[in-house]
């Protein structure tokens, strides 16, 4: 039997002898991964939702009269000459009326008696992402007010701030939970390692005194760490996937998920998480006993 066979045999023996501890460690790893990736998932989804809300930043120019299509091109050019703009949308009286009635939802009946003509036409300007500070937006809107036919310029300042604060609050809560969880994960992992070391260091010391080389001592530990990392991370990620599906299935009906658009990690991130778990577990099990190798 070669050296490698010996090491594998040793690892198998260790696992079968200490299966209860091993199971506990496996559970710990799974839990840590589940917690971490759960928060990572919520956080990335929130970031995405936040980005979508930012998308909604627009400046509205109310006009005195409808703009005929020929004029629109000229307007576009003028605006684009001033600053970088992502999108320009022209809203006719009819568009405005339809949107308001959509916005009122079930309250739309109040508009029944009115024609579309009571709302003014407008131009909606979506500035580039890099145009973010309020002063910049203010300057831009001041310029827009000078456009011919503009009666009033408005940007969703108040509404934006409100939503911004709300997402900020949510983000802080999620970040804090994440930080706390990361701390606990670090705690748990270091505790697990300490307990493993407590259980193993006598054996490792004796092996050293018997002249075992590093491969002989670290090999089985590495294999165990690798298996634990692989199984633990996979179980954790898989549980998260089940959880994700469960949550999603509970919200299959209405359009809430379109607003929130809850999505799972792409495969590349999943793969990355599993790899990180693998490396941490196998590396950690080697590092934890390093000081006993100096004997």
């Amino acid at each position, binding site marked *: 039997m070669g050296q490698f066979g010996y090491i594998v045999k040793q690892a198998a023996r260790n696992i079968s002898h200490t299966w209860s501890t091993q199971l506990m460690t496996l559970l710990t790893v799974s839990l840590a991964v589940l917690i971490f990736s759960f928060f990572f998932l919520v956080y990335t989804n929130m970031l995405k939702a936040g980005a979508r809300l930012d998308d909604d930043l627009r400046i509205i120019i109310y006009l005195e009269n409808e703009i005929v299509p020929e004029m629109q091109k000229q307007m576009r050019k003028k605006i684009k000459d001033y600053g970088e703009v992502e999108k320009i949308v022209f809203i006719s009286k009819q568009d405005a009326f339809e949107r308001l009635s959509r916005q009122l939802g079930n309250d739309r009946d109040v508009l029944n008696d009115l024609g579309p003509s009571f709302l003014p036409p407008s131009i909606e300007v979506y500035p580039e992402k890099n145009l973010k500070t309020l002063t910049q937006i203010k300057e831009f809107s001041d310029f827009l007010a000078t456009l011919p036919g503009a009666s009033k310029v408005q940007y969703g300042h108040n509404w934006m701030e409100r939503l911004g604060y709300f997402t900020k609050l949510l983000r802080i809560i999620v970040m804090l939970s994440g930080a706390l969880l990361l701390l606990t994960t670090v705690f748990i992992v270091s505790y697990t390692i300490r307990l493993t070391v407590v259980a193993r260091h006598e054996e490792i010391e004796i092996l050293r*005194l018997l*002249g075992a080389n590093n491969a*002989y001592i670290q090999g089985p530990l590495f294999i165990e760490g690798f298996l634990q990392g692989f199984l633990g991370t996979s179980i954790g990620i898989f549980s998260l996937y089940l959880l994700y599906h469960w949550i999603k299935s509970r919200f299959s009906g209405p359009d809430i998920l379109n607003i929130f658009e809850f999505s799972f990690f792409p495969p590349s991130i999943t793969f990355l998480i599993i790899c990180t778990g693998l490396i941490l577990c196998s590396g950690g099990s080697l590092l934890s006993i390093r000081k006993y190798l100096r004997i």
Partner: protein
Amino acid sequence: MTSTFKIAEDLEESRPIVEAVKVTKVYTPDVVALQDVSFRINKGEVVFLTGMSGAGKTTLLKLIYCLEMPTKGLIEVNGRDLSKITSAGIQRLRQTIGVAYQDFRVLPKVTVFQNIAMAMEVLYKEPKEIKSRINELLDMLNLLEKRHTPAGKLSRGEQQRVAIARAAANKPQLLIADEPTGNLDKTISARVMELFKQLNESGTTVIIATHDETIFKDSKNMVLDLHHGQLSF
């Protein structure tokens, strides 16, 4: 006590296996365990190390198998200067030395068989060879029945024999036994000494630290007598 010095003229090899020159060991902060100790042990010899409790016997042995480093002085094992040894070198050195520790260092949750097998597995010996060697040793030390008992459930004397069996398992070049009969009765002590004799006959150098004069007083072997960390011949 006057010690019998035996120059190893009748031994096949007379090269030294352990050589110490003015070795001093000070444990921090100020415990002088060994002071200017010089001696030379030739291959194939049997050497007794004696002295009062706390004289420095265990410390001297620890220096030989590299568990401690001397504070001053030179120590060479198998011609290798231990102050310049690498980690891999220590591993290779220990593979040629069998040690029965004074505090046994057996794993209490592991069976007697497995405790001894560890020493042989480290050298990647074949399972069949391991099994036959362990059975032979256990038979010799009257421990065959306890083969599959966890070492923690043995009496202290039985544990001591496990430690001795483990030290002898690989038929090492150098066997170090620290107080090997401290918990053993006369009959078993004699068996242990018989085992050491067998090993010595097949070429093993044996160093025995003991306070039990009965096991060396009639022999003509070299006796190193420590007094408060110093050798007195």
